[in-house]
């Protein structure tokens, strides 16, 4: 493998990573449920692209399989499951109720990205391999942003998409640091992600049926008095 080829792939992976982080920021900034879903699909495609690039660079069939599994579950199966379980919630155009307004959310998001680099820094110092330098801090930043989205959103479907975005962030790191994880684990993880979407989707439907709203952030019957 010559080094200029490797550099091109690294540059492409860095570009993919930058776009990946942008989609994560998009979750924080978007106003519509449908836009969140589209961002999630885009983010999953970028995850698959990064897996494909690293797979080509490392000559690993395994990572190409991961890319294929990602596309199948996250861009096809999960949107289909969500449409089946909570279609009306996803496709109705309305603003998402949120705890913080967009400018202050984005300001906090910038701080979160800095924090992600602080967390990733000692790991990067310990082991030096090209893709890890790109994927590790960006993946951790996307994780933190996804978790932040869950905190500031009050709606069920955006909280679920935030959760799946966190998982995407973890896998973005995973393809770089653990490229030879057994395929059975990858497959099981893919099934797991689909089951998360199914369970949460069905729960959302039950909540909507029983409570009449999917603003889960407003449910507060249970607390200490």
């Amino acid at each position, binding site marked *: 493998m010559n080094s200029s080829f490797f550099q091109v792939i690294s540059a492409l992976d860095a570009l993919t990573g930058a776009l990946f982080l942008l989609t994560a920021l998009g979750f924080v900034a978007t106003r519509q449920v449908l836009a969140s879903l589209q961002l999630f699909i885009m983010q999953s495609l970028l995850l698959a692209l990064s897996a494909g690039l690293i797979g080509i660079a490392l000559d690993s069939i395994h990572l190409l399989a991961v890319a294929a599994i990602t596309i199948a579950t996250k861009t096809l199966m999960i949107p289909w499951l969500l449409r089946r379980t909570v279609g009306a919630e996803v496709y109705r155009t309305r603003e998402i109720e949120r705890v913080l307004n967009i400018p202050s959310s984005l300001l906090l998001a910038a701080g979160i990205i800095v924090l992600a680099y602080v*967390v990733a820094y*000692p*790991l990067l*110092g*310990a*082991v030096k391999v090209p893709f890890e330098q790109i994927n590790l801090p960006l993946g*951790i930043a996307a*994780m933190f942003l996804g*978790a932040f989205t*869950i905190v500031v959103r009050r709606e*069920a479907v955006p*909280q*679920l998409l935030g*959760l799946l975005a*966190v*998982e995407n962030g*973890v896998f973005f*790191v*995973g393809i770089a*640091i*653990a490229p*030879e*994880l*057994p395929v*059975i*684990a990858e497959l*099981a*993880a893919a099934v*797991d992600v689909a*089951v*998360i979407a199914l*369970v*949460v989707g*069905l*729960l959302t439907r*039950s*909540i909507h049926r*029983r*409570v009449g709203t999917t603003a*889960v952030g407003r*449910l507060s*019957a*249970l607390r*200490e*008095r």
Partner: protein
Amino acid sequence: MELVAIFIIPILAGGLSMLPTGRRLAAPITLTATAIISALAVAVALDASRAGHVSAPGEWLTCDGLGVLVLVLVAFVGFTSALFSWGYIAERIRHGSAGNLQRYYGLYNLFVLSMLAVPLLANVALVWIAVELTTLLSAFLVGFEDTPEALEAAWKYVILTTLGAVFALLGFLILYWGSRVAGFHPFTWQGLVEAAPHMPPALLWTAFLLILVGFGTKVGLVPMHTWLPDAHSQAPASICALLSGVETTTVLYVILRLFPIVGSAPGLDAKPWFIAFGLVSVGIATLLLITVHDFKRMFAFSTVEHMGIILVAAGLGGMDAHLGTTYQMAAHAIAKSFCFFAAGITVMAVGTQEIASVRGLIRSSPLSASALLAGGFAIAGAPPFAVFVSEFVILKAGLASGQYVAIGILAFFVVVAFCAVMYHINLMAFGLPDRDQPAVVIPASCKATLALASVPLLLIGIYVPSPLEHLLQMAATAMGG
């Protein structure tokens, strides 16, 4: 062979329970399946105590002392809770609960399977998936009552524990990375112990913290515990027994597995973190135990307290403290599941979970009052129950190793928590009933469960059979010194 059977039986039983014609059969099938699994788990435990560990062909499934302990506890509570479910769930449905009986038993079997899988699977990545499945398979069991409160509890349970599990996943991927950097070792608990001294410390430490916080969410460690009292109070009593009694223990087992791994790396020390997290959980849970208004929530907070005690005990280090840890795990699983069975029949008898609206239970429903008293004494740690003995062992081991501050704080909170639990239960059991309670018939299967579950409850504080003692010692050894 037993290990493979333990995997297959719940799948078969779950499938049979869901068959369209199986409405009447779902409960007996589940009970039979869990009884067989319990027998198999005991057989595995006996094998393991002879050979040190048991593994199935292909090395996919393996089980050492600590794993066997968790396996036996899950199998036992899985069985008693299935017996309790038989009468209890039928009764709930008769009283207008919208839950679906067959879906309950289908998910019940699979939920038990996912917990059995955690100590059995050799590959650590698969262990993570099993832990995650325990959440997903139990989500609808938590929301079984289909009331707005139950669904709210199920929602918080799924979102928060899954978020925690995903952070833990990053920890496991970093562990895998570390073991690869250290040279190729199998991605098993034993392989990680061998790889740990050669891993870059930054990787191992980050992975440890991610898993401690991520899975700590599911164990209910403070401050990630907020979902736990909701889920553990809104689920049907039979499911509470599983959630509080063994699901938390199963996930805590995974955290305890990190102890020898971090311990074998030079320069790293997990002990202060275990003690700090544990003491904070014990302290906050004790304060919540004082102010609690709902008796199922009270037992849930007591679970947070006990998880903290187990973590502190593990963090004290040394064989004696670890023996206390494993003993406490067993004592807690047995006592806490009993407490929730008692709480279940109490709710049946009085129709409320409010402590303040239950008075003079000993007159209106002597059975539930005596069950609550026995469970309360057992879980709060009165002699001669097992929790008393295990807490005594832990405190003594801590004093022997000179960790006076930690032991002082722990002893203080344990005593306060004891008083808080017994105060609330006394209020409920004695005094004059405010209003006349219509007599309620407690289903026979629930009575049978209480009788059955009270045997180990009363026994293991006084007398530990030698195979069990050997098992606890093996489990403590597996945790390292």
